[in-house]
């Protein structure tokens, strides 16, 4: 594809919107800012779709997808042999990501037109959204590990601004700071990882880096020969990069910022904490996947177990949350755990089987639609109820019919019920896990049951549970600008699964075989159905349930006949066993051990700092004393001990 320089416009248009709105959005363009921001992203989305169409059409005609570098600028020669280029690359995953990012961003822009209407800092909000979209698009298009790091940090900065948007709320400011510092802490791993990999590979370019570190080359020899604590530097570099990814993607134990980040405006959560920023970690590992495949299998095993554990852990915690956005946050963490462990399934699967890679990217793709939809629905609900707590909701299905329908579609999709999109991608992940590691497969299977359970717990608590509220006095469900994105995303949540993904997105660009799922799907779907039924059984009936709702449930009503006994059993299982023995301890570990450790770290630092403040007494003769002591200590150390 020649003449592809226009691709640079995809990230640059939102940047332009940011600059214009940042300068004029507070006063002169306040009213127009929503239109300007949305317009820029609309064009970006159009260009992304056009690029995707052309790219995959070229794939079909060539028989395989190639890596294209439409833009490349040599930026500086760092030292001989290590130059830094700024480039834009197109390959299946980056094309897929620009579509996802620009599309979800567009939906969020449109939705916010209604949701944020009347905010005094409306223009600033759209400026920040533009900055975020620019950074995220830049991140996925980066052809260079240094460049991706720059955008990676920019994404962190803009998400800091967006989470802390309601800066008059102390909790929002604290959450923004926590998110920034925790992810920055993880980025430290990423940074050191970059330093190690690029120093030994003598390049920062992804393509060259992958070539040098996966085939016989002097660079590979140097990085595998060098070791630290008995582990080769290649493994160290990759694990450190993974740590950076795990921070951004909120994997255990670096996930603690994600639930708090829900303090930001809800559409922001849909954009950042559902579809785009949090999957950056998955994207990063996918970008370097050939190196991960080539390196010591232990590295991918780390990815596998961290991913699987996060998936399970978050799903369990999600079962005991009462704040609607926190349930969604933990559910995001759990789904990202799925994507991560799908990437980790490679090592045991044999050289040729890279189903996990495709499955992971596929799940990333479908997840973007239904999770953004869930968050936007939550936005509508919160807009109406003025509360995040599930106890303040209930019986909203008549009041918010469209939201109800969309929410249900999204829940079915995330639960993996055919033919909704989540079904296809999740089945592929489970299939990959099945071939690779039976234990992780079992974890994934169980988690998918839990997913159905907690999502439908949410669904029933919000839309059923109570007497349907009076429809009489309401003034419309939501403005049109909020409804349209819901409908479009719902269509995506239904149909995204039919995209022939495995044919297009493979780690080496060669068309995949597109493995059938067939009978394999029976167990996960049954488990999901069981989870749904369980959720319905508890949460539809916990309040004084009117007969009408009971009748609507039909088959379940028969079960309700044995209400007391089964209630006891299930309540024992859920309340006593799942909640008390698993959910609560998991939440407790989360709150006390993981958070506690971070707090301890801060506390100890503060205490040491207070202690050593005493040295800084302000007396100049003391200073001379320390000075002299310093000289003496250095002299002793380096003349007598080290030589």
């Amino acid at each position, binding site marked *: 594809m020649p003449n592809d320089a226009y691709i640079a416009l995809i990230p640059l248009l939102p940047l332009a919107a940011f600059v214009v709105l940042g300068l004029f959005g507070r006063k002169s363009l306040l009213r127009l800012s929503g239109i300007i921001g949305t317009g820029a992203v609309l064009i970006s989305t159009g260009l992304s779709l056009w690029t995707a169409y052309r790219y995959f059409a070229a794939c079909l005609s060539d028989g395989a997808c190639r890596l294209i570098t439409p833009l490349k600028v040599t930026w500086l020669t760092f030292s001989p042999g290590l130059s830094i280029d700024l480039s834009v690359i197109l390959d299946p995953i980056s094309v897929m990501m620009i579509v996802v990012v620009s599309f979800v961003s567009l939906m969020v822009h449109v939705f916010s037109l209604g949701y944020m209407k009347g905010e005094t800092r409306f223009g600033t909000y759209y400026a920040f959204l533009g900055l975020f979209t620019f950074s995220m698009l830049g991140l996925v298009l980066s052809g260079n590990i240094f460049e991706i790091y720059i955008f990676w940090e920019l994404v962190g900065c803009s998400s800091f601004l967006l989470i802390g948007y309601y800066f008059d709320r102390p909790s929002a400011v604290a959450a923004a700071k926590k998110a920034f510092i925790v992810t920055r802490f993880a980025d430290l791993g990423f940074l050191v990882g970059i330093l190690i990999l690029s120093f030994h590979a003598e390049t920062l370019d992804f393509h060259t880096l992958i070539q040098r570190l996966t085939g016989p080359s002097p660079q590979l020899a140097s990085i595998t020969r060098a070791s630290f604590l008995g582990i080769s530097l290649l493994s160290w570099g990759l694990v450190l990069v993974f740590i950076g990814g795990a921070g951004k993607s909120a994997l255990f134990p670096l996930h603690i910022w994600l639930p708090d980040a829900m303090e930001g405006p809800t559409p922001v959560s849909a954009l950042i904490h559902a579809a785009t920023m949090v999957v950056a970690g998955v994207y990063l590992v996918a970008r370097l996947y050939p190196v991960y495949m080539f390196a010591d299998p232990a590295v991918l095993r780390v990815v596998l177990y961290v991913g699987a554990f996060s998936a399970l852990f978050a799903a369990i915690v999600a079962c005991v949350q009462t704040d609607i956005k926190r349930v969604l946050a933990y559910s995001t963490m759990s789904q990202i755990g799925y994507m991560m462990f799908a990437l980790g399934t490679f090592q045991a699967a044999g050289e040729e089987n890279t189903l996990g890679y495709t499955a992971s990217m596929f799940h990333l793709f479908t997840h973007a639609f239904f999770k953004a939809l869930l968050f936007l629905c939550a936005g509508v609900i919160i807009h109406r109820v003025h509360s995040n707590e599930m106890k303040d909701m209930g019986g909203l299905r008549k009041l918010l019919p469209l939201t109800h329908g969309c929410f249900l579609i999204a829940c079915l999709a995330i639960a993996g019920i055919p033919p909704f999109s989540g079904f296809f991608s999740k089945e592929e992940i489970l299939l990959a896990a099945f071939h690779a590691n039976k234990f992780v497969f079992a974890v994934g299977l169980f988690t998918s049951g839990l997913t159905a359970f907690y999502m439908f717990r949410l669904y029933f608590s919000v839309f059923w549970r109570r007497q349907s509220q009076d429809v009489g006095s309401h003034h419309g469900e939501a403005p049109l600008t909020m409804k349209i994105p819901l409908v479009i995303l719902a269509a995506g949540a239904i149909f995204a699964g039919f995209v022939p993904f495995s044919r297009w997105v493979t780690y080496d660009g060669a068309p995949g075989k597109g493995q059938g799922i067939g009978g394999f799907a029976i167990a996960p779907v049954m488990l999901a159905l069981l989870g749904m039924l369980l959720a319905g059984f508890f949460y539809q009936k916990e309040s004084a349930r009117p007969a009408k709702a009971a009748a609507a449930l039909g088959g379940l009503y028969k079960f309700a006949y044995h209400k007391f006994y089964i209630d006891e059993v299930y309540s024992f299982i859920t309340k006593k066993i799942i909640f008390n023995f698993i959910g609560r301890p998991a939440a407790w570990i989360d709150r006390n051990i993981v958070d506690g450790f971070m707090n301890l770290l801060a506390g100890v630092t503060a205490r040491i700092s207070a202690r050593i403040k005493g040295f800084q007494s302000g007396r100049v003769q*003391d200073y001379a004393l320390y000075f002299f002591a310093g000289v003496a200590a250095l002299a002793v150390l380096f003349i007598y001990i080290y030589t």
Partner: protein
Amino acid sequence: MWAGFIFSLRQELIVTGIIFLLLFIKVGATEYKTAVILNLVNGLLLANFILGFIGCQDSILFSGMFHTNKLLVLEKNILNLGTLIISLQAYDWLKGHRQVLEFYLLLLATLVGFFFMISAGNLLMFYLGLELSTIPLAALSSFDLEKRQSSEAAMKFIMSSAFSSALLLFGISLLYGATGTLDFDTIGQRLDGSAFQLFAFILLLSGFAFKISVVPFHLWTADVYEGSPVTVSAYLSVISKGAVFFVFIQVLYTVFKPLAANWYRILVLLSILTMVTGNLFALRQDKLKRLLAFSSIAQSGFILAGITGSSRTGDASVIYFILVYIFSNLGAFGVVSLISAQTGKEGIDDYKGLYATNPLLSWVMAISLFSLAGIPPTAGFFGKFFLLMAGVGKGNYVFIGIAALNMVISLYYYLRVIKAIFMESQPEPIGKLTIPFLPNLAFLICVAGIIMTGLMGWVYDYIYSLSIGL
């Protein structure tokens, strides 16, 4: 011959010329306009900066006492630019000051001192340059004539300096005893790493370490920064430090090359100590000047990490970082200086709600602090990245890990200030301030520098092409 001589010495001669000019005005003119003096000095500094771009040849003057080459001219030009920015920023403060001429006399004397120190080819020349800059600096620290704290700062500075100079001089004499020469080129050939020579080296090193506020020789820093006028603190934190770093790296890479294995270990230790201590102290500070003092200590630790790289990359990354550091630190100090001059407020809590009243100053501060914290896409990030990259060359990953961890810790206190400015409020925030033209121009230069130095790759490429390796 004279033309070549003058040409090689042109930067020193111009600054000395300004000094004499001011001296004549002081002696001759009965009355003068402060504004004219300020514009005159700024104009001449600008001229010197522009002339600095004219190419030059490597030359050695005064029988090896004075060296010059493209790299040294570039380093002097960086310092000259920094001085110009500081002078622009101080416009407001100086206009109301009675002793403008004396201020510039002292300030430019230190600059000439640094120039000669950078070009020194001999330990005596180096020592002369260093002292020529140290003593006027102490006088400058007490330039807030009404404030007791300012005189206290000057006192502390001169006492500590005297102590460090004494040890430095002791080191020089021991080195002379050990090698029989003061000439940089010959010293290098006669070093063998004996305990005696190592001891002399450590004394010399502690003299350097004092100037660049390396722990445990840093104790004067916070007190002096806090007590001195903000302009002088800014000068101390970037120009003085930058100049000594320039010399330090040259001396290490050329003269003490035979002891590289020894000083590598010392520098790693000092670098870790400096970063950790600077950052830990900065965490709890409530006054911005003290916070910036400790942050500048921590930054010194980072620069040391780059120096340990012992390669051409190490040299280039240090010079590049100092350039970036001048822009970032002067951006931050400029804001503090302006606010302090107009309102007298210097606490972090005073800055709450600044964004509501002074958005421009708030953005300058935020961009500068982000650059100091090393967050992309500001130049500070590139600078830190290059320093770490240079450090990685030695394969000491624990050390690089600690350095990277310190970047995260430092983020914490920089964010505190940004949080106060943008996200907090107070009943009586700092009112709307007027920013005169020249300080405004200085802010523009700083912000443009912070953004452009990072994005324009050729800046680094150029520095690299001039750098020296071990």
